[in-house]
């Protein structure tokens, strides 16, 4: 059976007696139809629910559509038409959109009206017992019981009142004349806190909304609409920003960021607005003594902390504090949070190493954030130092596993369930993942910007990465910030440096050295061959080396792999040039054989070229060892990839001075107290509404002709539950002394 509507068939009077809430709005007694209907709508539950539904939908949009992105991102993602609509509707900043705030304001008004509508009723009801209820009305209630007791009415009434009072009911009685003598109507009530819960929970909504609206950027925006403040849209030093872009010291609420480099002080917070920034001066300045980062041995960050000194501008007081994530510092009503960190002006010392271009190495130094011009002949380039990372923790397992599998030939995926389960017994401390986390040392990033303003981003590691003979320097490149870096892997030489490879790369670009290498190769390989064979082999060797070097005139018409800086088209070279040659010249069924022969020849030639390059650099020839072999095989790949390297040189960091900066979030949010009070009310209110049942009970006792007492009992509650029914059952058994 379903619970039907509880109150069907009740007269108007009984409805009131139950004080069931209506969900209709306030009905004003005014002749103005519009005002009356407007107020009724505003204070009705259906209006509040509609508002909440719109808030839900808007919130979903806000989580799906990335908020506060630059306009161009929306244009790229959705096209000009939709992005225009999104921005017109402020869907890119839903939560601070005027219509969203308007809905919240309406919600506040609606909820306030709802409270004001119910409060008088609740207060009136608070005092009323409704002991004057007609006996006839009891028959209409859902929970009803009757009984006949042997005691006389006086005793029965005394007992019932006593029992009710001792179980926490508030009781009032009314004596009425009946044909058989005096009867008593006992009216009792319990759980009035339920109604207070209603008030608490609903006023909580109002408090939370008001507090949060105040702490949002409404106040800041109001100062721009109504006051003389404007948004700053330019660039430049904070000190040069004029007063109309600065908010007053007594601004009650704001939230923004402040960057402080180590050893420096700052006292101006930057509040970002949708179309620029405004500045907020603080009554104190924050000096960063040191920014501390600690790591667990897994490479996960363990601590971000800033040791700061607060200099009070008024009193000149100095207060030392430590700001950590989860441990903000509060000073004069302003909260200082550890938000993130940045570079505070580290200096990079680097060597520029030519990548195939015929230039000499040179030294360069610069501060992060600065730009160093490189003007050479008619080519204009600038190095912009963009970042320094002192610690890079990488998972080295992936590379290692690949190597193991190649060696053993076993399928690593073949793990039987038994082994797997065994790995998952025992303590939770052991990881079964293939992880070999390792700090691979510092790296720095820079951009090369050409005369046309085009820039390519680079990310170079200072130290070689990997194990044993397979260690490589990682030189990362990317054209757009959204891409991951692609890495050129340069093998280390016997001195753990990049120089061996750089010399080899230079030799490959030098036609004379290539010729020398071919001649040396022929001196050995030419022995025991006929003249014709020798000429043939020498032609092939020269051709292959010039193809690999990208110098062969035949490649002039080959497709370019891309455009480098200063719009200089990159030239096909390396293994791609050789495979292009194969595809174009050699018939399909002959390619595999030819390709093998070409690669063998190339390896031999590159060995000679290495020796030539070392001789030119005054180094001993490469010994025929395993590590030389490893160097050579990696060098072939790196040389080949170097043709895709879009710059004529790379920068190898030799040293650095690390200076960090801490980014603080600075907030003044006086609305917080109101919001927290609202939260407290909300929790209390919800528990009271859900767990306190508001009940009213009437027991009508009247003597019958035999001197016994007839009892009729009814319970009204705002919510009927099985527990409530059971409680009534027990209550009626006790009060009416019905033996179960």
């Amino acid at each position, binding site marked *: 059976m379903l619970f039907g509507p509880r109150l069907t068939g009740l007269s108007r009077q009984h409805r009131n007696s139950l004080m069931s809430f209506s969900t209709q709005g306030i009905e004003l007694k005014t002749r103005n139809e519009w005002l009356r209907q407007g107020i009724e709508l505003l204070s009705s539950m259906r209006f509040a629910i509609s508002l909440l539904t719109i808030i839900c939908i808007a919130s979903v949009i806000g989580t799906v559509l990335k908020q506060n992105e630059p306009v161009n991102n929306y244009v790229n993602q959705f096209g000009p038409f939709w992005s225009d609509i999104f921005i017109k509707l402020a869907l890119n900043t839903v*939560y601070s959109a005027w219509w969203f705030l308007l809905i919240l304001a309406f919600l506040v008004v609606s909820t306030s009206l709802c409270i004001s509508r119910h409060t008088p009723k609740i207060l009136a009801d608070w005092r009323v017992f409704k002991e004057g209820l007609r006996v006839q009305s009891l028959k209409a209630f859902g929970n009803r019981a009757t009984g006949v007791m042997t005691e006389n009415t006086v*005793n029965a009434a005394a007992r019932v009142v*006593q029992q009710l009072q001792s179980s926490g009911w*508030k009781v009032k009685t009314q004596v009425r004349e009946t044909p058989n003598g005096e009867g008593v109507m006992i009216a009792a009530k319990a759980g009035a806190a339920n109604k207070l819960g209603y008030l608490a929970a609903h006023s909580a909504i109002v408090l939370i909304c008001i507090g949060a609206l105040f702490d949002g950027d409404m106040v800041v925006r109001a100062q721009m609409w109504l006051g003389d403040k404007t948004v700053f849209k330019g660039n430049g030093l904070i000190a040069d920003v004029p007063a109309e872009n600065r908010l007053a010291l007594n601004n009650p609420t704001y939230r923004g960021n402040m960057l402080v480099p180590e050893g420096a002080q700052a006292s101006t917070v930057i509040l970002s607005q949708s179309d620029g920034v405004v500045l907020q001066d603080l009554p104190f300045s924050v000096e960063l003594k040191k920014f501390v980062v600690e790591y667990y041995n897994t490479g996960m960050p363990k601590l971000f902390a800033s040791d700061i000194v607060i200099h009070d501008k008024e009193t000149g007081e100095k207060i030392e504090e430590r700001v950590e994530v989860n441990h903000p510092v509060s000073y004069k009503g302003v909260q200082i949070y550890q938000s993130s960190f940045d570079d505070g002006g580290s200096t990079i010392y680097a060597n520029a190493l030519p990548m195939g271009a015929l230039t000499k190495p040179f030294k360069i130094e610069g501060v992060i954030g600065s730009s160093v011009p490189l003007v050479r002949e008619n080519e204009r380039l600038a190095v912009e130092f963009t970042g320094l990372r002192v610690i890079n923790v990488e998972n080295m397992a992936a590379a290692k596993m690949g190597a193991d599998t190649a060696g053993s030939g076993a399928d690593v995926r073949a793990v039987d369930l038994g082994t797997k389960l065994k790995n998952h017994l025992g303590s*939770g401390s052991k990881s079964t993942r293939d992880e070999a986390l390792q700090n691979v040392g510092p790296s720095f990033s820079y951009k090369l910007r050409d005369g046309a303003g085009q820039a390519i981003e680079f990310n170079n590691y200072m130290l070689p990465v990997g194990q044993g003979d397979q260690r490589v320097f990682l030189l990362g490149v990317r054209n757009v910030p959204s891409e991951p870096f692609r890495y050129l892997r340069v093998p280390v030489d016997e001195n753990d440096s990049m120089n061996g490879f750089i010399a080899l790369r230079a030799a490959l670009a030098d036609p004379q050295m290539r010729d020398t290498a071919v001649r040396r190769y022929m001196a050995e390989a030419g022995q025991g061959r006929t003249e014709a064979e020798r000429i043939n082999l020498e032609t092939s060797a020269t051709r292959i080396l010039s193809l690999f070097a990208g110098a062969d005139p035949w490649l002039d018409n080959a497709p370019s792999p891309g455009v480098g800086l200063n719009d200089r088209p990159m030239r096909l070279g390396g293994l791609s040039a050789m495979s292009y040659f194969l595809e174009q010249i050699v018939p399909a069924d002959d390619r595999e054989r030819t390709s093998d022969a070409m690669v063998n020849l190339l390896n031999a030639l590159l060995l000679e070229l290495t020796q030539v390059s070392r001789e030119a650099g005054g180094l001993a020839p490469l010994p025929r060892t395993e590590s030389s072999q490893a160097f050579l095989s990696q060098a072939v790949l790196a040389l080949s990839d170097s043709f895709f390297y879009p710059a004529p040189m790379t920068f190898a960091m030799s040293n650095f001075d690390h200076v960090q900066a801490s980014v603080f979030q600075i907030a003044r949010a006086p609305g917080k107290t109101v919001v927290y009070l609202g*939260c407290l009310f909300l929790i209390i209110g919800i528990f009271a509404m859900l767990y306190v049942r508001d009940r009213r009970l009437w027991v009508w006792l009247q003597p019958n002709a035999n001197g016994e007492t007839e009892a009729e009992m009814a319970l009204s509650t705002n919510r009927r539950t099985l527990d409530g029914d059971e409680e009534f059952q027990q209550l009626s058994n006790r009060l009416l002394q019905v033996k179960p």
Partner: protein
Amino acid sequence: MTTANESTLASGLNQLMGDQEPKGYFARRSLADWLFAAVMVGAMAIAFALYHGAMDEYEKGILFGITPAAIALGWFWRPMARLMVGGAALAMLAIWLYQGPEGADLARAETVFLLKYFLSSQSAILWMCVTVFMSTAFYWLGMISRKNSDSMELLGSRVAWLSVVLAVVGTLVRWYESHQMGPDIGHIPVSNLYEVFVLFTWMTTAFYLYYESHYKTRAMGAFVMLVVSAAVAFLVWYTLVREAQAIQPLVPALQSWWMKLHVPANFIGYGTFAIAAMVAFAYLIKSQAQETNWWRLAPLWVLGVVLCFEPIVFRQSSQTGGTLYWVVYTAISAAIIAGILLGRRRIAERLPSLEVLDDVMYKAIAVGFAFFTIATVLGALWAAEAWGGYWSWDPKETWALIVWLNYAAWLHMRMMKGLRGTVASWWALVGLAITTFAFLGVNMFLSGLHSYGEL
């Protein structure tokens, strides 16, 4: 106060009568209750005596505050007292077994038999997974079997209790183990997706077992344990395929006292919302038991499958392994739902009355809503410390708000308009879909500050 216009009754109303009053709260306590209270107070005293040096004022306050709270909880529902004492005793046994000649040694988990196969955190949690599946199977056998229904359901209930005990032991032991890994690593195991799934499993099961004893019917277990089984299936996949079970230290943002409160409060919400949805599903099955039109049953099947599908839909975003696992998962869940629909007459016979189902649904949502409110408020308090603002419209926060508003509307409609029955049940089922998205989907699809449980 009686302020009636008494006449002859005046004296009578003051008489003391009534000898059958219910006894007072303390008078109703049994010997076992007092024993339990003594054990808790003793445990508190020992903990204080041993470790007061390592505790700050807050922690001392919490220790003193939690003791009466635990006693009250144990008195409110006696099986809870047994769970607390039993779980703690087994966890202490595990800790004792971890002690080697030179102090605690986690390597003993590989050599000590009891630790290796039962009491170490991973073993206990694996056993928990097994027992949850077993319990679900027994409940369903009870549902289907014509002869042994009651005994099968009793078995299901007992095994469900076992899984709760194992989960609690696994959690406590894992907490201990994390502290043994390093002084800076130890933390309560509620910090990543693996740990919160264990939390979800035992909290949901425990809440269900409470309703089972309160309403004196075990027939809802078949439905509720299905959702717990789905969570455990996810946990098994997460462990075996993703290898995500290892204890990880806490990133700075999570190093906060609030985590201990915020996460469990949230999972009371998630767990009870899940119970409400499964009971709603049972309600719909029962109310449509006589339905013979397949097209009328189809929406129910579709929504059931959609709910099961939710984790898989999320899986699309990442490419790594385990596809076969999810194919099997899908096949099993679609078959189970089809089976439920096919056997709806028999199931309807077994299920308690619609009033009881409706009442459980309401109660579960009420508990969930209250705790979800607390969790969200705690989250706001925490966010104010960690992120610099109590509300920043982070996707997780926003979806928590949507979940909250959804159930707020449900409760409003029920209390104000008397919404019951089929519509309320459908709504509760849809509520679970929204909740699951807020719990899992947000972590996978939407970026934000709240990206701790990665998939």
